[in-house]
């Protein structure tokens, strides 16, 4: 029982890590605050599950297809970021989030509010959880390496420049719009892949799992871990997944423990934004993430 519990916790932490790393691409490196990230996780989970259930796709193929679907689904949202930024973009992304959630809530294909059952499993047999955890850890390692390579390379340099001064970068012949579309697509693809894995491991999906509560938790992970850092989001995901579990050991009634989690998340974000805005892993401030976002808000129009 405790082993089983720990494996499940590790799986959830790794999934959150994947999701946080992908959000960090958009928020930390792209300088765009989108709250719609769990939406891609959800779209990925549902598309992969439905492809496997109704189209008979093998699970790995369905997961990859889900990643591609999410990358494509990110285009409309990314296109909005080209026209609105800062607070306005937060609201637009929230609209996307709620809209997609309502669609999932209301069509039969997705099982509506009742959720989706009988999703084909990634692995069978007695070792399915250990194997699943292995796959998740492998996926996290690959994503980490991918992001690291990308950020330390020329594209990462251009992203930093884009956060510093978008027009100056465009004047050098770089297209910030294309860069944003690309970073969004990659980010949504990773989130969708993670969502697909979630579905095939936990075998049940419900629209409530991809709501604004998860957006806040996700944002907390990235901020606490450190925006625009390679390891930060992963670390933040582990902390934010494990801490609420620890609260449950206190044996508090649900009426107290569940608001307590919300309070802890909010407090963490506030404490970090005031005392350590660069997060756990952040070194000196690099003009990334929320920095770029708030900087743009404060900058007087020229």
């Amino acid at each position, binding site marked *: 029982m405790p082993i089983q519990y720990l494996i499940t916790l590790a799986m959830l932490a790794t999934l959150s890590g994947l999701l946080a790393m992908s959000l960090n691409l958009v928020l930390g490196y792209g300088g765009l605050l989108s709250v719609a990230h769990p939406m891609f996780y959800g779209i990925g989970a549902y598309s992969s599950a439905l492809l496997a259930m109704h189209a008979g796709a093998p699970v790995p193929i369905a997961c990859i297809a889900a990643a591609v679907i999410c990358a494509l689904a990110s285009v409309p949202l990314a296109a909005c970021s080209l026209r609105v930024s800062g607070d306005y973009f937060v609201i637009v992304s929230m609209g996307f989030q709620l809209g997609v959630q309502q669609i999932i809530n209301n069509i039969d294909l997705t099982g509506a509010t009742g959720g989706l059952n009988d999703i084909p499993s990634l692995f069978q047999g007695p070792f399915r959880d250990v194997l699943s955890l292995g796959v998740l850890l492998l996926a996290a390692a690959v994503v980490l390496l*991918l992001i690291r*390579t*990308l950020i330390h*390379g*020329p*594209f*990462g*340099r*251009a992203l*930093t*420049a884009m*956060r*510093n*001064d978008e*027009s*100056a*970068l*465009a*004047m*050098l*012949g*770089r*297209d*910030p*719009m*294309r*860069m944003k579309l*690309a*970073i969004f697509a*990659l980010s949504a693809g990773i989130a969708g892949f993670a969502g697909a894995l979630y579905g095939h491991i936990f075998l049940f999906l419900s629209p409530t799992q991809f709501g604004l509560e998860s957006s806040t938790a996700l944002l907390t992970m990235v901020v606490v871990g450190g925006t625009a850092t390679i390891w930060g989001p992963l670390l933040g995901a582990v902390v934010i997944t494990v801490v609420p579990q620890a609260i449950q050991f206190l044996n508090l009634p649900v009426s107290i423990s569940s608001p307590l989690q919300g309070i802890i998340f909010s407090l963490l974000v506030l404490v970090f934004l005031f005392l350590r805005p660069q997060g756990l892993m952040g070194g000196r401030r*690099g*003009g*990334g993430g929320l920095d770029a976002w708030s900087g743009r808000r404060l900058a007087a129009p020229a």
Partner: protein
Amino acid sequence: MERAAAGGARMSAVLDIRGLRKSFGGLVVADEITLSLRPREVVGLIGPNGAGKTSLFNLITGVVRPDAGQIVMGSTRIDGMTMAERARSGIARTWQHARSFRSLTVLDNLLLGVHDYPGDSLLGSLLQRRINRKREREAETRAMMLLERVRLAHKAHALAAELSYGQQKLMGMARALMGDGVCLLLDEPMAAVEGRTYAIMRDVIQEEAERGQAVCLVEHNVGFIRDLCSRGVFMSAGRVLADGPVDELMRVKELKALYFGAAA
């Protein structure tokens, strides 16, 4: 200087602006502007504050779109293009306030000025790593040469944010030259710049014109304009009032009254 102007007039224009109009609500920033920039010429845009000089740069580079009129480079219309496309077709620009990428090193600032580099795109950055390394080395060599020219080679690995204001303007100049453009627009290159930096900036501008670039600059420093510009374009309230050799412009009484006043 006179020689350059006379020679330039016969050469075909690098950039042709025809009947350009732009207004923001009731404020007209460009009123039927027609202007040609030719190779080897240094054109000074002069005029009082709010005359539309920087707005003209913004229209040429694509920061804002014109309401009417054409901008032609060589034989291609560029007024429908994005900023990035215009830059790639040969327009380079510096900004009044250097606009450095502050969290990058001086060298990285310059490396971003190279066009057509596979590492610019997300997939290219990941997949074409061998070509990237080769291009990166070539670009670094070029960047170091430019940094030598603006006397900033010793700062190559410093963060741009650590440079002085004058050094940032020199870096901005070098960054604009990385793309090998044919038309160089300089927005107040000499503002808040003096002494050694002034001399370096002047030399670089002169050299670029001699290499065949069409240079156009906005500047309030009258001495500098006399010193460097072969042709002056006087603007006021979004209109070109006069276009000719700087010395002649300076003799026109009306223009003096509008702008030079105490300075002349």
